[in-house]
Protein backbone atom coordinates (compact mmCIF):
# COMPACT_ATOMS: atom_id res chain seq x y z
CA UNK A 1 0.00 0.00 0.00
CA UNK A 2 1.14 3.55 -0.70
CA UNK A 3 -0.03 6.13 1.76
CA UNK A 4 -0.75 9.78 1.05
CA UNK A 5 1.98 12.39 1.35
CA UNK A 6 0.26 15.39 2.92
CA UNK A 7 1.72 18.92 2.85
CA UNK A 8 0.02 21.82 4.61
CA UNK A 9 1.01 25.44 4.11
CA UNK A 10 -0.21 28.56 5.93
CA UNK A 11 -3.40 26.89 7.17
CA UNK A 12 -5.90 28.97 9.11
CA UNK A 13 -9.37 28.19 10.44
CA UNK A 14 -12.08 30.02 12.34
CA UNK A 15 -15.53 28.62 13.09
CA UNK A 16 -17.03 32.03 12.35
CA UNK A 17 -15.90 34.16 9.46
CA UNK A 18 -13.78 36.96 10.84
CA UNK A 19 -13.94 35.41 14.32
CA UNK A 20 -11.19 34.06 16.52
CA UNK A 21 -8.96 31.62 14.69
CA UNK A 22 -8.51 28.10 16.01
CA UNK A 23 -5.08 28.05 14.38
CA UNK A 24 -3.37 30.36 11.93
CA UNK A 25 -0.35 30.03 9.64
CA UNK A 26 0.06 26.31 10.23
CA UNK A 27 2.71 24.50 8.13
CA UNK A 28 3.29 20.77 8.35
CA UNK A 29 4.22 17.66 6.42
CA UNK A 30 2.86 14.16 7.05
CA UNK A 31 4.59 11.27 5.35
CA UNK A 32 3.26 7.86 4.31
CA UNK A 33 4.22 4.74 6.25
CA UNK A 34 4.49 6.68 9.50
CA UNK A 35 2.28 7.46 12.48
CA UNK A 36 2.00 11.17 13.18
CA UNK A 37 0.55 12.12 16.54
CA UNK A 38 -1.24 15.39 17.10
CA UNK A 39 -1.21 16.83 20.58
CA UNK A 40 -2.19 20.03 22.30
CA UNK A 41 -4.51 21.32 24.98
CA UNK A 42 -8.28 21.17 24.67
CA UNK A 43 -9.50 23.81 22.23
CA UNK A 44 -6.20 23.96 20.39
CA UNK A 45 -7.89 22.59 17.25
CA UNK A 46 -6.68 18.99 17.12
CA UNK A 47 -10.03 17.57 15.98
CA UNK A 48 -10.61 20.52 13.67
CA UNK A 49 -7.24 19.99 12.00
CA UNK A 50 -8.03 16.28 11.56
CA UNK A 51 -11.37 17.11 9.94
CA UNK A 52 -9.68 19.60 7.61
CA UNK A 53 -6.95 17.13 6.67
CA UNK A 54 -9.60 14.43 6.13
CA UNK A 55 -11.47 16.78 3.72
CA UNK A 56 -14.55 16.96 5.95
CA UNK A 57 -14.13 20.64 6.70
CA UNK A 58 -12.77 23.51 4.63
CA UNK A 59 -10.05 25.79 6.00
CA UNK A 60 -10.42 29.56 5.95
CA UNK A 61 -7.06 29.91 4.27
CA UNK A 62 -4.07 27.84 3.30
CA UNK A 63 -3.04 25.05 1.01
CA UNK A 64 -3.40 21.30 1.50
CA UNK A 65 -1.64 19.04 -0.97
CA UNK A 66 -2.13 15.28 -1.26
CA UNK A 67 0.61 13.62 -3.31
CA UNK A 68 1.19 16.86 -5.23
CA UNK A 69 -2.50 17.61 -5.79
CA UNK A 70 -4.11 20.60 -4.10
CA UNK A 71 -7.22 19.19 -2.45
CA UNK A 72 -8.53 22.20 -0.55
CA UNK A 73 -10.04 23.68 -3.70
CA UNK A 74 -11.66 20.50 -5.00
CA UNK A 75 -15.44 20.42 -5.35
CA UNK A 76 -17.62 18.74 -2.77
CA UNK A 77 -18.29 15.65 -4.87
CA UNK A 78 -14.59 15.03 -5.54
CA UNK A 79 -13.69 15.54 -1.88
CA UNK A 80 -16.47 13.12 -0.90
CA UNK A 81 -15.10 10.59 -3.37
CA UNK A 82 -11.60 10.90 -1.88
CA UNK A 83 -13.02 10.53 1.62
CA UNK A 84 -14.95 7.45 0.63
CA UNK A 85 -12.12 5.75 -1.21
CA UNK A 86 -8.88 6.88 0.43
CA UNK A 87 -9.73 8.01 3.97
CA UNK A 88 -10.49 5.99 7.08
CA UNK A 89 -11.59 7.91 10.17
CA UNK A 90 -11.92 6.68 13.74
CA UNK A 91 -14.15 9.13 15.59
CA UNK A 92 -13.75 9.80 19.28
CA UNK A 93 -17.25 8.51 20.12
CA UNK A 94 -17.23 5.69 17.53
CA UNK A 95 -20.23 7.29 15.78
CA UNK A 96 -22.15 4.11 15.05
CA UNK A 97 -25.74 3.93 13.82
CA UNK A 98 -27.71 2.59 16.80
CA UNK A 99 -30.49 1.26 14.55
CA UNK A 100 -28.27 -1.10 12.59
CA UNK A 101 -26.14 -4.13 13.37
CA UNK A 102 -22.45 -3.94 14.08
CA UNK A 103 -21.70 -5.63 10.74
CA UNK A 104 -23.88 -3.14 8.84
CA UNK A 105 -22.11 -0.28 10.61
CA UNK A 106 -18.75 -1.61 9.49
CA UNK A 107 -20.14 -2.02 5.97
CA UNK A 108 -21.24 1.65 5.85
CA UNK A 109 -17.77 2.72 4.75
CA UNK A 110 -18.01 0.25 1.86
CA UNK A 111 -21.44 1.54 0.83
CA UNK A 112 -20.17 5.08 0.30
CA UNK A 113 -17.03 3.78 -1.43
CA UNK A 114 -19.01 1.57 -3.81
CA UNK A 115 -17.73 -1.74 -2.44
CA UNK A 116 -20.12 -4.56 -3.45
CA UNK A 117 -22.26 -5.86 -0.59
CA UNK A 118 -20.77 -9.37 -0.66
CA UNK A 119 -17.23 -7.99 -0.44
CA UNK A 120 -18.01 -5.54 2.34
CA UNK A 121 -19.75 -8.19 4.43
CA UNK A 122 -16.85 -10.64 3.96
CA UNK A 123 -14.21 -8.02 4.72
CA UNK A 124 -16.30 -6.67 7.61
CA UNK A 125 -16.55 -10.11 9.24
CA UNK A 126 -12.83 -10.64 8.71
CA UNK A 127 -12.00 -7.36 10.47
CA UNK A 128 -14.47 -7.94 13.30
CA UNK A 129 -12.94 -11.37 13.92
CA UNK A 130 -9.45 -9.90 13.77
CA UNK A 131 -10.27 -7.33 16.44
CA UNK A 132 -12.14 -9.73 18.68
CA UNK A 133 -15.70 -8.54 18.12
CA UNK A 134 -16.79 -11.03 15.47
CA UNK A 135 -19.24 -12.59 17.92
CA UNK A 136 -21.00 -9.23 18.14
CA UNK A 137 -21.53 -8.84 14.39
CA UNK A 138 -25.31 -9.14 14.53
CA UNK A 139 -25.71 -7.07 17.70
CA UNK A 140 -26.76 -3.42 17.81
CA UNK A 141 -24.27 -0.82 19.06
CA UNK A 142 -26.36 -0.36 22.21
CA UNK A 143 -25.67 -3.98 23.10
CA UNK A 144 -21.85 -3.75 23.10
CA UNK A 145 -19.34 -2.04 25.38
CA UNK A 146 -17.56 1.26 24.63
CA UNK A 147 -14.29 -0.56 23.96
CA UNK A 148 -16.03 -2.92 21.55
CA UNK A 149 -17.75 0.01 19.85
CA UNK A 150 -14.41 1.70 19.27
CA UNK A 151 -13.01 -1.50 17.78
CA UNK A 152 -16.05 -1.65 15.49
CA UNK A 153 -15.33 1.96 14.46
CA UNK A 154 -11.76 0.92 13.74
CA UNK A 155 -13.01 -1.95 11.57
CA UNK A 156 -15.18 0.51 9.64
CA UNK A 157 -12.18 2.82 9.14
CA UNK A 158 -10.08 -0.06 7.80
CA UNK A 159 -12.77 -1.66 5.62
CA UNK A 160 -11.72 -0.11 2.31
CA UNK A 161 -7.98 -0.41 3.11
CA UNK A 162 -7.66 3.39 3.01
CA UNK A 163 -4.42 5.13 2.13
CA UNK A 164 -4.72 7.56 5.01
CA UNK A 165 -6.24 6.90 8.44
CA UNK A 166 -7.20 9.58 10.93
CA UNK A 167 -7.94 8.85 14.57
CA UNK A 168 -9.58 11.43 16.83
CA UNK A 169 -8.70 10.32 20.37
CA UNK A 170 -9.30 6.73 19.23
CA UNK A 171 -8.17 5.28 22.55
CA UNK A 172 -9.46 8.07 24.77
CA UNK A 173 -12.30 6.15 26.40
CA UNK A 174 -10.81 2.68 26.29
CA UNK A 175 -9.41 0.28 28.81
CA UNK A 176 -5.70 -0.44 28.35
CA UNK A 177 -6.29 -3.72 26.55
CA UNK A 178 -8.70 -2.22 24.02
CA UNK A 179 -6.43 0.82 23.62
CA UNK A 180 -3.55 -1.50 22.82
CA UNK A 181 -5.63 -3.31 20.17
CA UNK A 182 -6.59 -0.02 18.47
CA UNK A 183 -3.11 1.44 18.63
CA UNK A 184 -1.63 -1.81 17.33
CA UNK A 185 -3.97 -1.75 14.36
CA UNK A 186 -3.04 1.83 13.48
CA UNK A 187 0.65 1.02 13.78
CA UNK A 188 0.19 -2.05 11.57
CA UNK A 189 -1.57 0.05 8.93
CA UNK A 190 1.35 2.50 8.91
CA UNK A 191 3.82 -0.37 8.69
CA UNK A 192 1.80 -1.53 5.68
CA UNK A 193 2.41 1.85 4.02
CA UNK A 194 -0.63 3.90 5.03
CA UNK A 195 -0.42 7.43 6.36
CA UNK A 196 -1.72 7.56 9.95
CA UNK A 197 -2.55 10.71 11.91
CA UNK A 198 -3.76 10.39 15.50
CA UNK A 199 -4.94 13.19 17.78
CA UNK A 200 -4.40 12.29 21.41
CA UNK A 201 -4.10 13.64 24.94
CA UNK A 202 -2.14 10.60 26.04
CA UNK A 203 1.57 11.54 26.36
CA UNK A 204 2.63 7.90 26.11
CA UNK A 205 0.69 7.42 22.89
CA UNK A 206 2.02 10.71 21.50
CA UNK A 207 5.55 9.55 22.26
CA UNK A 208 4.92 6.23 20.51
CA UNK A 209 4.31 7.95 17.17
CA UNK A 210 6.96 8.43 14.51
CA UNK A 211 6.31 12.16 14.07
CA UNK A 212 4.77 14.59 16.50
CA UNK A 213 2.67 17.67 15.72
CA UNK A 214 2.04 19.96 18.68
CA UNK A 215 -0.69 22.59 18.56
CA UNK A 216 -0.37 25.42 21.00
Amino acid at each position, binding site marked *: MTGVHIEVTDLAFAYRRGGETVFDGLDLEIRPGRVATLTGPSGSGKSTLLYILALMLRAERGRIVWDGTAVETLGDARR*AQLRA*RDVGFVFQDALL*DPARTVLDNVGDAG*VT*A*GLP*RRDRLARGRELLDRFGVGHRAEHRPGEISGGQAQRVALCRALLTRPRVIFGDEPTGNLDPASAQVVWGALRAAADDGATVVVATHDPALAAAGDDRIVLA
Partner: protein
Amino acid sequence: MNAVADVLPGSPRARDIVDEGLRGAVAQRAASVTAALVLAIVCFVVLVTTGQSAASEQRVLARVDSVGSRLVTVVDDSGTAGIHPEGVARLEQMSDVEWAIGLGPARDVLRTDVFADSSGVAARTVVGELPAPVRILSGRAPRPGEAVVGRVAARTLGGVTASASVAPSELLTTGQLVEHDARTIPVVGVFEAEAPLDPLDEVVLVAAEPHEVVPVRFLHVLARDVAGVERLAQVLTTSLEADDPTATTVDVPRGVLELRSVIAGDLGRAGRSTMLVVLLVSMAIVAVTTLGSVTARRREFGRRRALGATRSAIVALVLVQAGASAVVGVVAGTCAGLVTLHLALGELPGAGFSAGVAGLVLLVALLGSVPPAVAAALRDPMRILRVP
Protein backbone atom coordinates in the same frame (compact mmCIF):
# COMPACT_ATOMS: atom_id res chain seq x y z
CA MET B 1 -2.20 1.77 -4.27
CA ASN B 2 -3.91 -1.11 -2.52
CA ALA B 3 -5.99 -3.74 -4.26
CA VAL B 4 -9.36 -2.71 -2.85
CA ALA B 5 -9.00 1.04 -3.35
CA ASP B 6 -7.83 0.49 -6.93
CA VAL B 7 -11.22 -0.92 -7.92
CA LEU B 8 -13.46 1.27 -5.76
CA PRO B 9 -15.44 3.94 -7.58
CA GLY B 10 -15.57 6.10 -4.46
CA SER B 11 -19.30 6.63 -4.82
CA PRO B 12 -22.25 4.47 -3.76
CA ARG B 13 -23.80 2.01 -6.19
CA ALA B 14 -27.40 2.74 -7.22
CA ARG B 15 -28.48 -0.64 -5.85
CA ASP B 16 -26.95 0.16 -2.49
CA ILE B 17 -28.68 3.55 -2.35
CA VAL B 18 -32.03 1.85 -2.99
CA ASP B 19 -31.20 -0.83 -0.44
CA GLU B 20 -30.10 1.73 2.16
CA GLY B 21 -33.16 3.87 1.44
CA LEU B 22 -35.50 0.93 1.98
CA ARG B 23 -33.67 -0.04 5.16
CA GLY B 24 -34.01 3.56 6.30
CA ALA B 25 -37.75 3.49 5.58
CA VAL B 26 -38.09 0.35 7.71
CA ALA B 27 -35.86 1.73 10.48
CA GLN B 28 -37.79 5.03 10.58
CA ARG B 29 -41.12 3.28 11.03
CA ALA B 30 -43.03 6.19 12.55
CA ALA B 31 -42.08 8.66 9.81
CA SER B 32 -42.61 6.11 7.05
CA VAL B 33 -46.02 5.04 8.32
CA THR B 34 -47.09 8.69 8.76
CA ALA B 35 -46.05 9.56 5.21
CA ALA B 36 -47.72 6.45 3.81
CA LEU B 37 -50.89 7.17 5.76
CA VAL B 38 -51.01 10.79 4.57
CA LEU B 39 -50.58 9.73 0.96
CA ALA B 40 -53.11 6.91 1.29
CA ILE B 41 -55.64 9.45 2.59
CA VAL B 42 -54.77 11.85 -0.25
CA CYS B 43 -55.26 9.13 -2.86
CA PHE B 44 -58.50 8.06 -1.23
CA VAL B 45 -59.87 11.62 -1.03
CA VAL B 46 -58.88 12.48 -4.59
CA LEU B 47 -60.41 9.29 -5.95
CA VAL B 48 -63.71 9.50 -4.08
CA THR B 49 -64.18 13.20 -4.86
CA THR B 50 -62.54 13.87 -8.19
CA GLY B 51 -62.91 10.24 -9.20
CA GLN B 52 -66.64 10.46 -8.65
CA SER B 53 -66.76 13.60 -10.81
CA ALA B 54 -64.64 11.89 -13.44
CA ALA B 55 -66.91 8.86 -13.49
CA SER B 56 -69.98 11.12 -13.75
CA GLU B 57 -68.35 13.17 -16.49
CA GLN B 58 -67.40 10.00 -18.31
CA ARG B 59 -70.94 8.66 -18.07
CA VAL B 60 -72.65 11.91 -19.10
CA LEU B 61 -70.25 12.48 -21.98
CA ALA B 62 -70.72 8.91 -23.16
CA ARG B 63 -74.45 9.52 -23.26
CA VAL B 64 -74.00 12.84 -25.03
CA ASP B 65 -71.70 11.21 -27.56
CA SER B 66 -74.06 8.34 -28.10
CA VAL B 67 -76.88 10.68 -29.08
CA GLY B 68 -74.99 12.17 -31.89
CA SER B 69 -72.38 14.70 -30.97
CA ARG B 70 -70.12 13.05 -33.54
CA LEU B 71 -72.66 12.64 -36.34
CA VAL B 72 -72.41 14.99 -39.31
CA THR B 73 -75.25 14.82 -41.84
CA VAL B 74 -75.27 16.21 -45.36
CA VAL B 75 -78.80 16.83 -46.63
CA ASP B 76 -79.85 17.34 -50.23
CA ASP B 77 -83.15 19.10 -49.49
CA SER B 78 -84.08 19.93 -53.05
CA GLY B 79 -82.88 16.73 -54.63
CA THR B 80 -80.76 18.68 -57.09
CA ALA B 81 -77.30 18.45 -55.47
CA GLY B 82 -76.44 15.14 -57.12
CA ILE B 83 -74.29 13.69 -54.32
CA HIS B 84 -72.10 11.00 -55.88
CA PRO B 85 -72.78 7.60 -54.28
CA GLU B 86 -69.22 6.42 -54.98
CA GLY B 87 -68.00 9.24 -52.70
CA VAL B 88 -69.42 7.36 -49.69
CA ALA B 89 -66.76 4.65 -49.97
CA ARG B 90 -64.04 7.28 -50.23
CA LEU B 91 -65.35 9.05 -47.12
CA GLU B 92 -65.07 5.79 -45.19
CA GLN B 93 -61.37 5.71 -45.98
CA MET B 94 -60.74 9.01 -44.17
CA SER B 95 -58.90 8.73 -40.86
CA ASP B 96 -61.41 11.01 -39.12
CA VAL B 97 -64.37 8.88 -40.20
CA GLU B 98 -65.68 5.88 -38.28
CA TRP B 99 -68.37 5.06 -40.82
CA ALA B 100 -70.44 6.70 -43.57
CA ILE B 101 -73.69 5.74 -45.28
CA GLY B 102 -75.75 7.38 -47.96
CA LEU B 103 -79.53 7.11 -48.10
CA GLY B 104 -81.61 7.55 -51.22
CA PRO B 105 -85.02 9.19 -51.42
CA ALA B 106 -87.91 7.56 -49.58
CA ARG B 107 -90.56 5.59 -51.42
CA ASP B 108 -93.45 3.53 -50.02
CA VAL B 109 -93.40 -0.24 -49.94
CA LEU B 110 -96.03 -2.81 -48.93
CA ARG B 111 -96.00 -6.48 -48.00
CA THR B 112 -96.86 -8.77 -50.89
CA ASP B 113 -98.55 -11.50 -48.84
CA VAL B 114 -101.03 -9.21 -47.08
CA PHE B 115 -101.09 -6.58 -49.78
CA ALA B 116 -104.64 -5.48 -49.28
CA ASP B 117 -104.42 -4.89 -45.52
CA SER B 118 -100.82 -3.91 -45.18
CA SER B 119 -99.79 -0.43 -44.18
CA GLY B 120 -97.02 1.09 -46.22
CA VAL B 121 -93.67 2.11 -44.83
CA ALA B 122 -90.83 4.16 -46.25
CA ALA B 123 -87.95 2.39 -47.96
CA ARG B 124 -84.61 3.97 -48.74
CA THR B 125 -81.76 2.64 -50.78
CA VAL B 126 -78.63 2.50 -48.71
CA VAL B 127 -75.16 3.15 -50.14
CA GLY B 128 -72.29 1.64 -48.18
CA GLU B 129 -71.99 -1.01 -45.51
CA LEU B 130 -74.56 -1.00 -42.73
CA PRO B 131 -72.83 0.74 -39.81
CA ALA B 132 -72.48 -0.62 -36.28
CA PRO B 133 -75.59 1.14 -34.86
CA VAL B 134 -77.72 -0.86 -37.31
CA ARG B 135 -77.85 -4.25 -35.62
CA ILE B 136 -79.48 -7.24 -37.34
CA LEU B 137 -82.02 -8.81 -34.94
CA SER B 138 -82.97 -11.72 -37.17
CA GLY B 139 -82.00 -12.91 -40.61
CA ARG B 140 -78.86 -11.47 -42.16
CA ALA B 141 -77.40 -8.32 -43.68
CA PRO B 142 -78.74 -7.57 -47.17
CA ARG B 143 -76.87 -8.25 -50.38
CA PRO B 144 -77.39 -5.86 -53.33
CA GLY B 145 -81.07 -5.69 -54.17
CA GLU B 146 -82.19 -7.21 -50.87
CA ALA B 147 -83.84 -5.40 -47.95
CA VAL B 148 -83.78 -5.37 -44.18
CA VAL B 149 -86.67 -3.93 -42.22
CA GLY B 150 -86.43 -1.67 -39.21
CA ARG B 151 -87.93 -2.95 -35.94
CA VAL B 152 -90.77 -0.39 -35.92
CA ALA B 153 -91.37 -0.72 -39.64
CA ALA B 154 -91.69 -4.50 -39.17
CA ARG B 155 -94.49 -3.98 -36.68
CA THR B 156 -96.18 -1.56 -39.04
CA LEU B 157 -95.97 -4.00 -41.90
CA GLY B 158 -97.18 -6.89 -39.79
CA GLY B 159 -99.90 -4.98 -38.15
CA VAL B 160 -99.10 -6.59 -34.80
CA THR B 161 -98.29 -5.26 -31.37
CA ALA B 162 -94.85 -4.72 -30.03
CA SER B 163 -95.16 -7.75 -27.75
CA ALA B 164 -95.51 -9.97 -30.78
CA SER B 165 -92.60 -8.50 -32.64
CA VAL B 166 -91.01 -11.91 -33.18
CA ALA B 167 -93.80 -12.98 -35.44
CA PRO B 168 -93.38 -10.31 -38.10
CA SER B 169 -89.65 -10.74 -37.94
CA GLU B 170 -89.94 -14.39 -38.81
CA LEU B 171 -92.53 -13.66 -41.42
CA LEU B 172 -90.72 -10.80 -43.00
CA THR B 173 -87.35 -12.52 -43.27
CA THR B 174 -88.95 -15.01 -45.60
CA GLY B 175 -91.28 -12.60 -47.30
CA GLN B 176 -91.13 -9.92 -49.93
CA LEU B 177 -92.11 -6.32 -50.29
CA VAL B 178 -93.47 -4.63 -53.30
CA GLU B 179 -93.18 -1.10 -54.47
CA HIS B 180 -95.91 0.87 -56.16
CA ASP B 181 -94.29 0.13 -59.50
CA ALA B 182 -94.71 -3.61 -58.71
CA ARG B 183 -90.99 -4.23 -58.31
CA THR B 184 -90.52 -6.88 -55.60
CA ILE B 185 -87.74 -6.71 -53.01
CA PRO B 186 -86.77 -9.79 -51.02
CA VAL B 187 -86.55 -9.18 -47.26
CA VAL B 188 -83.67 -10.98 -45.54
CA GLY B 189 -83.71 -9.55 -42.04
CA VAL B 190 -85.02 -7.25 -39.38
CA PHE B 191 -82.79 -4.70 -37.71
CA GLU B 192 -82.74 -2.41 -34.75
CA ALA B 193 -81.03 0.94 -35.13
CA GLU B 194 -79.38 2.53 -32.13
CA ALA B 195 -78.67 6.20 -31.59
CA PRO B 196 -77.81 8.29 -33.51
CA LEU B 197 -79.45 6.34 -36.33
CA ASP B 198 -82.52 5.22 -34.36
CA PRO B 199 -84.96 6.99 -36.75
CA LEU B 200 -84.06 4.27 -39.25
CA ASP B 201 -86.08 1.82 -37.13
CA GLU B 202 -89.13 3.05 -39.04
CA VAL B 203 -87.59 2.45 -42.45
CA VAL B 204 -86.85 -0.39 -44.84
CA LEU B 205 -83.25 -0.29 -46.04
CA VAL B 206 -82.57 -1.65 -49.50
CA ALA B 207 -78.97 -2.41 -50.40
CA ALA B 208 -78.01 -0.63 -53.62
CA GLU B 209 -77.43 -2.77 -56.74
CA PRO B 210 -73.95 -2.67 -58.26
CA HIS B 211 -73.57 0.32 -60.57
CA GLU B 212 -76.99 1.60 -59.48
CA VAL B 213 -76.97 5.37 -59.54
CA VAL B 214 -78.64 6.25 -56.26
CA PRO B 215 -79.66 9.87 -55.79
CA VAL B 216 -78.26 10.29 -52.28
CA ARG B 217 -80.46 12.56 -50.20
CA PHE B 218 -78.89 12.00 -46.80
CA LEU B 219 -75.25 11.35 -46.14
CA HIS B 220 -74.59 10.33 -42.50
CA VAL B 221 -70.92 10.44 -41.45
CA LEU B 222 -69.72 9.57 -37.94
CA ALA B 223 -66.47 11.20 -36.80
CA ARG B 224 -64.08 9.01 -34.81
CA ASP B 225 -64.01 11.55 -31.99
CA VAL B 226 -65.58 14.85 -31.05
CA ALA B 227 -62.40 16.75 -31.87
CA GLY B 228 -62.71 15.68 -35.51
CA VAL B 229 -66.31 16.82 -36.01
CA GLU B 230 -65.59 20.40 -37.09
CA ARG B 231 -62.74 19.23 -39.31
CA LEU B 232 -65.02 16.69 -40.95
CA ALA B 233 -67.79 19.24 -41.42
CA GLN B 234 -65.28 21.53 -43.11
CA VAL B 235 -64.24 18.77 -45.51
CA LEU B 236 -67.87 17.92 -46.33
CA THR B 237 -68.68 21.59 -46.90
CA THR B 238 -65.73 22.30 -49.20
CA SER B 239 -64.94 18.98 -50.86
CA LEU B 240 -68.20 17.05 -51.13
CA GLU B 241 -68.38 14.93 -54.26
CA ALA B 242 -71.57 16.26 -55.80
CA ASP B 243 -72.81 17.91 -59.00
CA ASP B 244 -73.84 20.98 -57.02
CA PRO B 245 -72.43 20.97 -53.49
CA THR B 246 -74.01 24.38 -52.81
CA ALA B 247 -77.44 22.77 -52.93
CA THR B 248 -76.65 20.77 -49.79
CA THR B 249 -76.68 21.67 -46.13
CA VAL B 250 -74.24 20.23 -43.63
CA ASP B 251 -75.77 19.60 -40.21
CA VAL B 252 -73.33 19.62 -37.32
CA PRO B 253 -74.71 19.03 -33.82
CA ARG B 254 -73.26 22.31 -32.54
CA GLY B 255 -75.72 22.56 -29.69
CA VAL B 256 -74.77 19.11 -28.50
CA LEU B 257 -71.07 19.91 -28.90
CA GLU B 258 -71.45 23.08 -26.87
CA LEU B 259 -73.40 21.22 -24.21
CA ARG B 260 -70.68 18.57 -24.17
CA SER B 261 -68.03 21.22 -23.79
CA VAL B 262 -69.92 22.89 -20.95
CA ILE B 263 -70.45 19.57 -19.15
CA ALA B 264 -66.81 18.57 -19.54
CA GLY B 265 -65.62 22.01 -18.48
CA ASP B 266 -67.86 22.37 -15.43
CA LEU B 267 -67.47 18.85 -14.08
CA GLY B 268 -63.77 18.77 -14.90
CA ARG B 269 -63.08 22.21 -13.42
CA ALA B 270 -64.71 21.37 -10.11
CA GLY B 271 -62.78 18.11 -9.90
CA ARG B 272 -59.47 19.70 -10.87
CA SER B 273 -59.86 22.46 -8.28
CA THR B 274 -60.53 19.94 -5.52
CA MET B 275 -57.60 17.82 -6.64
CA LEU B 276 -55.24 20.80 -6.80
CA VAL B 277 -56.07 21.88 -3.25
CA VAL B 278 -55.73 18.34 -1.88
CA LEU B 279 -52.42 17.81 -3.69
CA LEU B 280 -50.94 21.12 -2.50
CA VAL B 281 -51.94 20.40 1.09
CA SER B 282 -50.54 16.89 0.84
CA MET B 283 -47.28 18.20 -0.61
CA ALA B 284 -46.90 20.51 2.38
CA ILE B 285 -47.66 17.66 4.81
CA VAL B 286 -45.16 15.37 3.08
CA ALA B 287 -42.52 18.12 3.17
CA VAL B 288 -43.05 18.69 6.90
CA THR B 289 -43.07 14.96 7.67
CA THR B 290 -39.91 14.36 5.68
CA LEU B 291 -38.23 17.39 7.22
CA GLY B 292 -39.01 16.01 10.66
CA SER B 293 -37.59 12.66 9.64
CA VAL B 294 -34.32 14.04 8.22
CA THR B 295 -33.89 16.38 11.18
CA ALA B 296 -34.18 13.43 13.54
CA ARG B 297 -31.56 11.63 11.45
CA ARG B 298 -29.11 14.52 11.11
CA ARG B 299 -26.36 12.56 12.84
CA GLU B 300 -26.89 9.66 10.47
CA PHE B 301 -26.55 11.92 7.46
CA GLY B 302 -23.57 13.68 9.05
CA ARG B 303 -21.93 10.29 9.59
CA ARG B 304 -22.64 9.24 6.01
CA ARG B 305 -21.25 12.52 4.67
CA ALA B 306 -18.14 12.09 6.84
CA LEU B 307 -17.70 8.59 5.44
CA GLY B 308 -17.76 10.00 1.92
CA ALA B 309 -21.38 10.10 0.80
CA THR B 310 -21.91 12.85 -1.78
CA ARG B 311 -24.71 15.37 -1.44
CA SER B 312 -26.51 13.79 -4.38
CA ALA B 313 -26.27 10.40 -2.64
CA ILE B 314 -27.94 11.87 0.45
CA VAL B 315 -30.69 13.42 -1.68
CA ALA B 316 -31.20 10.10 -3.46
CA LEU B 317 -31.29 8.24 -0.14
CA VAL B 318 -34.01 10.50 1.25
CA LEU B 319 -36.02 10.33 -1.97
CA VAL B 320 -35.84 6.53 -2.10
CA GLN B 321 -37.05 6.38 1.47
CA ALA B 322 -39.86 8.86 0.78
CA GLY B 323 -40.69 7.06 -2.46
CA ALA B 324 -40.96 3.71 -0.69
CA SER B 325 -43.44 5.12 1.83
CA ALA B 326 -45.29 6.88 -0.97
CA VAL B 327 -45.68 3.72 -3.06
CA VAL B 328 -47.17 1.86 -0.10
CA GLY B 329 -49.52 4.77 0.67
CA VAL B 330 -50.56 5.31 -2.94
CA VAL B 331 -51.31 1.62 -3.55
CA ALA B 332 -53.32 1.36 -0.31
CA GLY B 333 -55.17 4.64 -0.93
CA THR B 334 -55.96 3.83 -4.54
CA CYS B 335 -57.31 0.39 -3.68
CA ALA B 336 -59.41 1.81 -0.84
CA GLY B 337 -60.71 4.65 -3.03
CA LEU B 338 -61.67 2.36 -5.90
CA VAL B 339 -63.38 -0.14 -3.61
CA THR B 340 -65.32 2.68 -1.93
CA LEU B 341 -66.39 4.14 -5.27
CA HIS B 342 -67.45 0.74 -6.51
CA LEU B 343 -69.46 0.00 -3.39
CA ALA B 344 -71.00 3.47 -3.12
CA LEU B 345 -71.70 4.26 -6.77
CA GLY B 346 -71.31 0.97 -8.56
CA GLU B 347 -69.00 2.59 -11.05
CA LEU B 348 -65.32 3.35 -11.37
CA PRO B 349 -63.35 6.13 -13.03
CA GLY B 350 -61.29 5.02 -16.03
CA ALA B 351 -58.05 3.09 -15.51
CA GLY B 352 -56.14 6.03 -16.99
CA PHE B 353 -57.66 8.40 -14.44
CA SER B 354 -56.85 6.11 -11.50
CA ALA B 355 -53.30 5.56 -12.73
CA GLY B 356 -52.96 9.30 -13.31
CA VAL B 357 -54.06 10.11 -9.75
CA ALA B 358 -51.67 7.51 -8.34
CA GLY B 359 -48.79 8.85 -10.45
CA LEU B 360 -49.61 12.44 -9.53
CA VAL B 361 -49.71 11.70 -5.80
CA LEU B 362 -46.42 9.81 -6.09
CA LEU B 363 -44.92 12.78 -7.90
CA VAL B 364 -46.26 15.16 -5.25
CA ALA B 365 -44.70 12.99 -2.53
CA LEU B 366 -41.33 13.04 -4.25
CA LEU B 367 -41.50 16.79 -4.97
CA GLY B 368 -42.50 17.46 -1.37
CA SER B 369 -39.48 15.45 -0.21
CA VAL B 370 -36.96 17.29 -2.37
CA PRO B 371 -36.52 20.41 -0.16
CA PRO B 372 -35.92 18.37 3.05
CA ALA B 373 -33.59 16.05 1.12
CA VAL B 374 -31.58 18.98 -0.21
CA ALA B 375 -31.52 20.56 3.25
CA ALA B 376 -30.16 17.29 4.69
CA ALA B 377 -27.50 17.11 1.97
CA LEU B 378 -26.39 20.72 2.40
CA ARG B 379 -25.80 20.49 6.15
CA ASP B 380 -22.15 20.65 7.13
CA PRO B 381 -21.39 17.17 8.48
CA MET B 382 -18.79 18.40 10.93
CA ARG B 383 -21.06 20.97 12.48
CA ILE B 384 -23.62 18.19 12.96
CA LEU B 385 -21.14 15.68 14.36
CA ARG B 386 -19.57 18.12 16.79
CA VAL B 387 -22.93 18.78 18.40
CA PRO B 388 -23.41 16.14 21.12
